[in-house]
Each structure stands twice: as C-alpha cells, then as structure tokens.
C-alpha cells in the first residue's frame, strides 16, 4: 500500500518534471516544495521561486507537501531520484523535516529553506525567514492602538509544529501583556486554516460575546474569523492578521479586517533561488545560513500599495 503510494507519487513528480523540462531538455532542474497553494502565501512563494528559476535558466519541479512530513519525505525521494540540482523548501515541521533535508544533502543536493526554519543548523545551505518576532510586535502595537489599549480579546494560533506559530504568539504577548487592561479571554489553535478558524471563532463568540478584538497568527485564520464575526453581525470586532495576503488587503480596503503584517514572501523565494544558483555555480552563497527579513505593517494607509506579498514603492 505504502509502496504503491510512493511509486505513484514519484511517477506524478517525474511527470511534472518531464513536462516542465520538455522545452529545455538540457536545463538543470530546481525543485520547489511548499505547503498547499490553497493558501495564497505559499502560492506566491512557489510563483516567486519558479519565476526566478526560469529567469536564471532552470527547469522547475513544483510540489506540495500539504504539511504532511511523510509526504514531504516522499517528495524529497522523488526530487532526489529526478536528479534536481537544488531544493527550495517551505517545510512541513521544524523537527520532522531535518531528516529529509539531511537525506538530500547526503546525496549532494543542497536545500534552501524559506519561511519556516528547521531546528538543526548546518543541514540546509540557507534558511531565509521573515523576522516573525519583529513582525508580530508591529502587528501587536497596531492591535493595542486599535483597541484603545484595553478590552477583551481572543488569539488564534497557528500549527504547533511550525516555529512561526510560537514566535508570533510570543511577539504578540511581549507587547500586549504590557497593557494591564488588555484581557486575553480565549486562545486556541486553528492550524493556519480558514475553515477551522471560522468554527473556532463561532464557539469563541458563544463563550465570550463581549469580545472586542481578535489577533490572528496568519491571514487565512483572520479571514475565517472575520467571516464568522460578519455572519454573527459582529463586524465591530477588531481583527488583525499576519502575512499580507491580497484577500486581507481587500478586506482592509473595505473596512473589514483592520491590519496585517506583510512578510516579503515573493522576494524571499526569489532570494532563495538566487542563493541556490550561486551555490550551484560556486559552491557557496557568501551569506550566513540563517537570514532574517523584516516585516512591514499594513493598514488602511498603505494597503492599496500591496500586491501579491510585495509592497510597491
């Protein structure tokens, strides 16, 4: 059963590789592995990486692991079997992904991580991540300001296996907890998911109808929470997200969600491919393994300048 599934996986993957490299048979291939593109953040990453790879003359093999470490492991096997020159990865778990990245490294295939870290250094060549702590503090400062520094609020947390869920929550609380009149009445994970956030928000509202604000660990959960609030006729509740998606941008412009924090996802993915290209050609990137990219607050003042995880100058 497992074997069949694995074989099927690699057939699918090879099919993609074959199709992509059909035009330039001699081109080297870069694998781009991310969570599901149903979250526009990951789609922007994959698109950014693929566009840069194409620009630099590579074929691409674009795969999604759906936040399943076992599936990610199978995708790595496929990428290794396909003889890719590098792997761009937004991983499926800080601890669980180390082995897969190590396996590729042992086969001489370098990995360049974006968005999420793994917990072991020296396995990936680069780990380029958003400065989630700095970004969360920006979001929290705006949230506190919007709340008038007081009131009951709820927090939606991301997937526990992802370091970013913890760091954002910590960044939020390092700011919000300084204000004694800000009261956290509910705190729950919705696993980065829009539909889960909708359900969680519904029950939070039932338990705490006096809620005045919701701070969310990402934009898809913020969208789910806002939809539930809207359905309950509670558009007065202040919602702040994290990511800088076009969906939340549009909501901000309509006066729905109040703010988010832009992670430069598109640029981050492009940087990773540039570093991969340099590494393939010279054997080094000339940069530290772990690199932080700062985030930018998005609210009604600058939302119009936001497009696909990049801010126009």
């Amino acid at each position, binding site marked *: 059963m497992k074997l069949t599934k694995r074989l099927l996986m690699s057939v699918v993957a090879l099919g993609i590789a074959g199709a992509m490299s059909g035009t330039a048979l001699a081109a080297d291939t870069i694998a781009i592995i991310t969570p599901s593109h149903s979250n526009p953040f990951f789609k922007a990453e994959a698109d950014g990486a693929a566009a840069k790879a194409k620009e630099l003359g590579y074929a691409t093999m674009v795969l999604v692991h759906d936040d399943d470490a076992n599936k990610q492991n199978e995708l790595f096997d496929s990428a290794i079997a396909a003889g890719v020159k590098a792997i761009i990865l937004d991983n499926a778990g*800080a601890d669980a992904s180390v082995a897969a990245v190590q396996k590729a490294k042992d086969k001489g295939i370098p990995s360049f991580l974006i968005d999420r*870290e793994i*917990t072991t*250094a020296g396995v990936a060549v680069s780990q380029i*991540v958003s*400065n*989630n*702590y*700095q970004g969360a*503090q920006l979001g929290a400062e705006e949230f506190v300001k919007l709340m008038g520094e007081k009131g009951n609020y709820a927090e939606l947390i991301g997937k526990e296996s992802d*370091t*970013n869920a*913890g*760091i954002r929550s*910590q*960044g939020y609380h*390092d700011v919000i907890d*300084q204000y004694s009149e800000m009261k956290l009445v509910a705190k729950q994970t919705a696993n980065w998911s829009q539909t889960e956030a909708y359900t969680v928000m519904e029950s939070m509202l039932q338990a705490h109808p006096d809620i005045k604000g919701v701070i969310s660990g990402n934009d898809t959960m913020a969208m789910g929470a806002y939809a539930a609030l809207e359905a309950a006729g509670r558009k007065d509740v202040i919602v702040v997200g994290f990511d800088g998606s076009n969906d939340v941008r549009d909501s901000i412009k309509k006066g729905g969600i109040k703010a988010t924090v*832009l992670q*430069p996802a598109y*640029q981050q993915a492009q*940087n990773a491919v540039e570093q991969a290209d340099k590494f393939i050609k010279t054997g080094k990137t000339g940069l*530290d*393994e*772990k*690199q*932080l*990219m*700062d*985030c*930018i607050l998005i609210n009604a003042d600058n939302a119009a300048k936001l497009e696909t995880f990049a801010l126009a100058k």
Partner: protein
Amino acid sequence: MKITTLFVASLLAASVSGCKLVKTSNGEAGVAADPIAEVVETTFDAKLVPALTEKAVDLATLQNAINGSLDKAGESYGVRVGGAGGGWNFPVKGSATVIEENRASKAAVAEIDIDGDGKADATLQLGPVVKGSALRDTAGLYDFSTFRDQIEYAKLGRALNDKAVSKLPAADTALKGKKVNFVGAVVIRTASEKPLIMPVSIEAAP
C-alpha cells in the same frame, strides 16, 4: 518470525543509539541553566559595550550623512539588517540635552536635543519596555545561525535590552534639563525618521 523480531530489535537498537548521540549534545547545552542569560552575561560588558563604543559614530555626524543619503550613511557607518523591509543599524554616541522625559509609559523615553535649537532630534529609550533588537543586531556579535530558532534569537534580543535597561538611570533620577553623554545603537529605515536609540549607557554631566 524470530529473525524478523531480532532484525527489528537491532534496527531499533541502532536508531536508539543514534538518537542518544544527539541527545547527549543537547544535554550538555542544557547543563547551563539558561544559555541565553549566559550569552548576555559573558558578552554584554566584555564585548558588546566595547564594540559599540569603539565603532560609534557621533549622532550629529550621522544625521548630516543621513540628510545626504541614508544608503551612503549606512555604507559608511552602519550594517544592513533585515533585507528590503529592514533598515540600517548604526552604533551611535553623542552628547545632548534632555528636553523632555516621559516616565509615565512603560516604554519610557527621553527626548534629546543635539544641536541646541531646543527641538528634539532623537529619542533615547529608557525601558522597561524597549522596541526593536538594535543591540543584538548592530555589533555583528550574535549570529542567528548559531541559535536553535527565531524564538531563542528573539529571547536574546529581549535579554540584551533588559540588561541595558538595568544599567540606565532609574526612574528616580530626573534627566530633564540635564546634559547627557550616551552610547547605543539605532535602526534607521527612512531618512526622515527621528532616531529611536537604545542606549547601553547614559551619563549625566554633573
């Protein structure tokens, strides 16, 4: 059947012993009660303060350079941190007059005038709540790659801020109207912003 069991057992044994190797190195790191606190203790006075003091550019000089071009000022005196959304980090020093002091907020600050025109040219953070990680990022002493994850690295930023705050004049020392000498670090993202400096020392002139 037996053979399979044996085989599985030996596989397990192999993986367990492989695991142990990793665990041991984790254990050694864990012996130090709080590795972040230890980093702060061993580097703050011995390395960070001397590095900032040695490299610090006079705030008046820096302001002039920034008025010309932030990027040129950055290349001359600073380090780039955080990519496009980030800014230039500068080690700074100066002597100035405190013209305003806000101790009511937990993010207490002193507004300082460096050119004597009676207007605030920059802000010194006094804590206990401090914004940013300029102390961690400016001197090039702390490499993110050597930390487990962002959470640990963020803790270091906060611990360095807390350590610096503990060395600054306490709330019962009024600074308003006094001439002070300071050394610290600052992040500048746009040429027009008023520098928000995190000091490692503020000495009031008698």
